[in-house]
């Protein structure tokens, strides 16, 4: 089935936040972000700004009637800075004017008197100074101390992983319209309507029932609008509350890039041990997460890094510690994969390190150590593994042996062009790692004409979740898809929602919808049974026809619905679904946190131009564990998009902050995201159709995040190509692998050895070194 938004998307009539028709008298906001990354804020000089034409009022922390607090997990982030500033771009004041231009012009006239304090941008430095978001967490399994003695080979090294700008093409924004009885309607471009509702409620000191949050759709989210949409909604709400007027703020692209957090950069130290048969028997890793200036979602991201620190591999002895380090960057946040990709990159780096020294193909170690059904993850869950099946199918289907021979032949005959090949297995757990968030509700109404409308907490952002939910209802009722409509997400219809995140949205909201539809269907069957003098379990609905014992009755869906209404039977249902079986003990760091895992294997090929350092992605061929896809078109799109985004993160997207904590990659001219050229020339996706039962909706496994991590293989394929040109090349485990870095590696000085010391890995600081 096609995406239900297809027609409006192609005709330009899909409504995003900035497209909502404005109410007369609407005012426009603009935020002043701190010009320095860390300092004491003494005072704001607002007079000149207030004299600007069309300026209505400038709001500061003193105007906040409730708590000046927007921290979700940890209460450590003010909405507006009051006495200290903690990152460049931290909102200090909010100007409201009659026009957007006037508001932005006035922002420039505000003078902030700030005494600068020392700035930390490096997570290791923050950790050394005990600047932590929370105490470190450690996952362990077996006994690594004992295991090192059994290892034939031990390798240790360091990794430096850069962040990633979300660059949703629709920037952040909010539009708040006052309602009667001290209520506010908040239109927000958010993945988390309830988070926006809670934040507005907290900052205004008003009960949540006065705050209605409405989301029709997002022009991309990718995690960037999970918690970071709250600020703009709360600022507009603050102004609307005081002024009694509608207030809108849609961020300029450069405001958005400068003021919002990104994917977390990580540094890490690893130590990996293998026995003489190449079994990985011990792995120790320490992660230094660059959380930025406030917690935001960093604790959750950190936990997923630990959950996925062994990727698809079974390692009997693991000791993994993660530090969430407070720096003076914008608070980093969710981004597709949510810390998992960083954890996976480090184990892949460790394996690549071992393979290079042992002079074998990394794929040999990878394949040998794939997790099997019955093996235990370091967090205690027992694997239902498809890792081996995906790998085997990929190797066979794509003729890995022949492919490798072809690459070897190419490299033997080309001096200035080299190809690299890499395998990238992925194992990703589905569910919010915070067990209490794994629930959802759906409200289904059947109208007397037989049409159906559905409200859920899911936010449509291109992932096709509303299409899947519609499919659920159409299938359960066995009615035409055009009888079903999805409503905009609204906190009045559905309360206390979890954000649309963790790849779990279709599962949670789809299951709730399934339950609601089944409840209505059962009542309808009772009505039919009574009217047709049979038993309810003899009644079925097939293609809008009511059957008894599979024989037509002459009744159709519409007639049945009408009959139910006249019999005063409820045609509405509000159902609640909570993922069963999951639990996690954060003291022992053991449990069963995931409803299921998604597995897959990608094989990637790249070609490097060894004179220039530029490269192209020749092919990405994937076998992906879909379970049983309920919408192959949408799922395929998610995989292709995830691969492109993952390759972007690993190769071209370079977030650059200077040592003063100022973002230098602050526009599309200085921050390169994949364009149409960046797509691999060939993408092949094959489904591993697994028959085992799972907790996914219609057994169609979640597909939002897992494919991003196939992109990690691009980094290692590039590394392998470089080594073909220069077997002594020094290729530190630093991302992204930009053409500049490839060029330096191609002609690197072999005396430097394989691993750069941390002191030298300051490439993320870019300029000013």
């Amino acid at each position, binding site marked *: 089935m096609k995406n239900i938004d297809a027609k409006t998307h*192609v*005709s330009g009539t899909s409504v995003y936040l900035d497209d909502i028709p404005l109410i007369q008298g609407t005012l426009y906001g603009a935020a002043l972000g701190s010009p320095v990354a860390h300092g004491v804020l003494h005072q704001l000089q607002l007079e000149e700004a207030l004299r600007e034409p069309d300026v209505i009022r400038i709001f500061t922390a003193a105007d906040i009637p409730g708590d000046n607090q927007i921290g979700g997990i940890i209460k450590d982030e003010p909405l507006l800075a009051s006495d200290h500033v903690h990152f460049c771009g931290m909102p200090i004041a909010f100007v409201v004017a009659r026009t957007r231009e006037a508001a*932005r012009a006035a922002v420039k006239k505000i003078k902030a008197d700030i005494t600068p304090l020392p700035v930390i941008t490096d997570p290791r430095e923050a950790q050394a100074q005990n600047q932590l978001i929370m105490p470190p967490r450690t996952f362990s399994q077996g006994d690594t101390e004992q295991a090192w003695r059994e290892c034939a080979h031990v390798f240790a090294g360091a990794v430096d992983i850069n962040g990633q700008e979300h660059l949703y*093409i629709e920037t952040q924004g909010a539009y708040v319209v006052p309602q009667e009885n001290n209520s506010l309607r908040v239109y927000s471009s958010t993945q988390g309507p309830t988070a926006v509702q809670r934040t507005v409620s907290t900052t205004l000191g008003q009960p949540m029932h006065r705050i209605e949050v409405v989301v029709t759709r997002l*022009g991309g989210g990718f995690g960037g609008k999970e918690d970071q949409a709250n600020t703009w909604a709360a600022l507009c709400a603050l102004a609307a509350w005081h002024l009694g007027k509608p207030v809108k703020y849609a961020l300029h692209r450069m405001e958005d890039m400068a003021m919002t957090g990104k994917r977390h950069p990580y540094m890490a130290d690893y130590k990996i041990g293998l026995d003489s048969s190449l079994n990985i028997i011990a792995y120790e890793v320490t992660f230094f997460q660059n959380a930025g200036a406030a917690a935001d979602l960093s604790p959750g991201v950190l936990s997923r890094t630990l959950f996925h620190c062994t990727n698809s591999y079974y390692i009997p002895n693991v000791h993994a510690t993660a530090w969430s380090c407070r720096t003076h960057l914008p608070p980093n946040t969710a981004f597709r994969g949510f810390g998992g990709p960083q954890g996976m990159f480090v184990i892949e780096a460790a394996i690549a390190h071992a393979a290079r020294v042992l002079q074998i193909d990394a794929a040999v170690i990878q394949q040998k150590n794939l997790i099997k059904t019955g093996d235990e993850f370091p967090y205690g869950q027992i694997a239902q593994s498809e890792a081996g099946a995906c790998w085997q199918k990929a190797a066979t289907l794509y003729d890995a042996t022949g492919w490798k021979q072809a690459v070897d032949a190419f490299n033997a005959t080309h001096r200035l062009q080299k190809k690299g090949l890499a395998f990238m297995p992925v194992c990703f757990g589905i569910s919010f790692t915070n067990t209490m968030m794994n629930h959802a509700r759906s409200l289904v109404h059947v109208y007397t004409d037989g049409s159906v409308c559905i409200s859920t907490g899911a936010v449509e952002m291109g992932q096709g979740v509303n299409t899947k939910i519609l499919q659920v209802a159409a299938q359960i009722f066995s009615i035409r898809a055009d009888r079903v409509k999805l409503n905009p997400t609204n906190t009045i219809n559905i309360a206390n929602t979890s954000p649309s995140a963790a790849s779990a949205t279709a599962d949670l909201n789809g299951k709730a919808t399934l339950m609601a539809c089944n409840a209505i269907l059962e009542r309808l069957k009772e009505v039919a049974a009574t009217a047709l003098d049979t038993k309810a379990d003899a009644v079925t609905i097939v293609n809008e026809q009511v059957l008894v014992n599979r024989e037509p009755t002459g009744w159709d869906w519409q007639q049945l619905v009408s009959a139910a209404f006249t019999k005063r039977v409820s045609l509405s249902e509000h159902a609640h679904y909570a993922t069963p079986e999951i639990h996690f003990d954060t003291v022992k760091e053991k449990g069963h946190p995931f409803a299921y895992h998604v597995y897959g294997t990608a094989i990637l090929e790249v070609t490097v131009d060894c004179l220039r350092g530029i490269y192209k992605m020749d092919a990405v061929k994937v076998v992906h564990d879909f379970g049983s896809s309920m919408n192959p078109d949408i799922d395929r799109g998610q995989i292709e998009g995830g691969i492109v985004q993952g390759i972007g993160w690993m190769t071209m997207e370079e977030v650059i902050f200077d040592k003063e904590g100022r973002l230098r990659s602050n526009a599309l001219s200085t921050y390169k995201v994949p364009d149409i050229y960046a797509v691999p020339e060939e993408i092949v996706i094959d489904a591993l159709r697994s028959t085992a039962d799972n907790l996914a909706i219609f057994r169609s496994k979640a597909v939002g995040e897992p494919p991003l991590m196939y992109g990690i293989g691009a980094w290692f394929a590039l590394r392998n190509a470089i080594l073909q040109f220069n077997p002594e090349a020094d290729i530190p485990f630093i991302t992204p692998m930009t053409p500049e870095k490839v060029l330096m590696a191609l002609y690197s000085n072999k005396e430097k050895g394989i691993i750069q010391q941390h002191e030298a890995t300051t490439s993320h600081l870019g300029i000013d070194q």
Partner: protein
Amino acid sequence: MSDQLKNAEEYTSGTSRRSFLKQSSLITAIALAPNAVVKAAEEGLDEKIAAAIEQMPLNVTINGVKQNLKIEPRVTLLDLLRERLQLTGTKKGCDHGQCGACTVHIDGQRVNSCLTLAVTTEGKQVTTIEGLAHGEELHPMQQAFLDHDGFQCGYCTPGQIMSAVCCIREGHADSPEEIREYMSGNICRCGAYSNIVDAIMDVKQGGKKV
């Protein structure tokens, strides 16, 4: 922050030019009717005088409809379409000509409407995504994007489609390689690129007039 936004805001605010206009309009006015205008200036009406003088007539045909407008010369075509004419199908992604979401046609040529001053369209024909279909019948490129799922979130889609139509009209859609070259100014963060190429190839090979 303010440092980083400097270029963007100089572009949108046009402060110095506006001050010059205010001064020159006042000097002219003072020569003609000193007392009244000086009083007006004291009352802070200079901004209003400047704004009135800055309004320029604009006659442009947008999606087949003749528009007789008065606009400030600093207004971009994108803002005119979105803010004045409520044609919100054309999207603002970056406002710097870097993402392609605002692509429209002027006299059949594709342009970034965020980099086009509206006054430069005097006497011209502007087509936006809203003007592409014939009533309920989608333009072949719209239909192809629908058929090939050439989108995910949909935000870049109007710009992609407008760009794709011209890609064919310009004769730059003979191969996937050529399409990539001539569509490289339109960013899709969801990464629906391969479906976009398929959609354009489909229209090109179908031979329908675009």
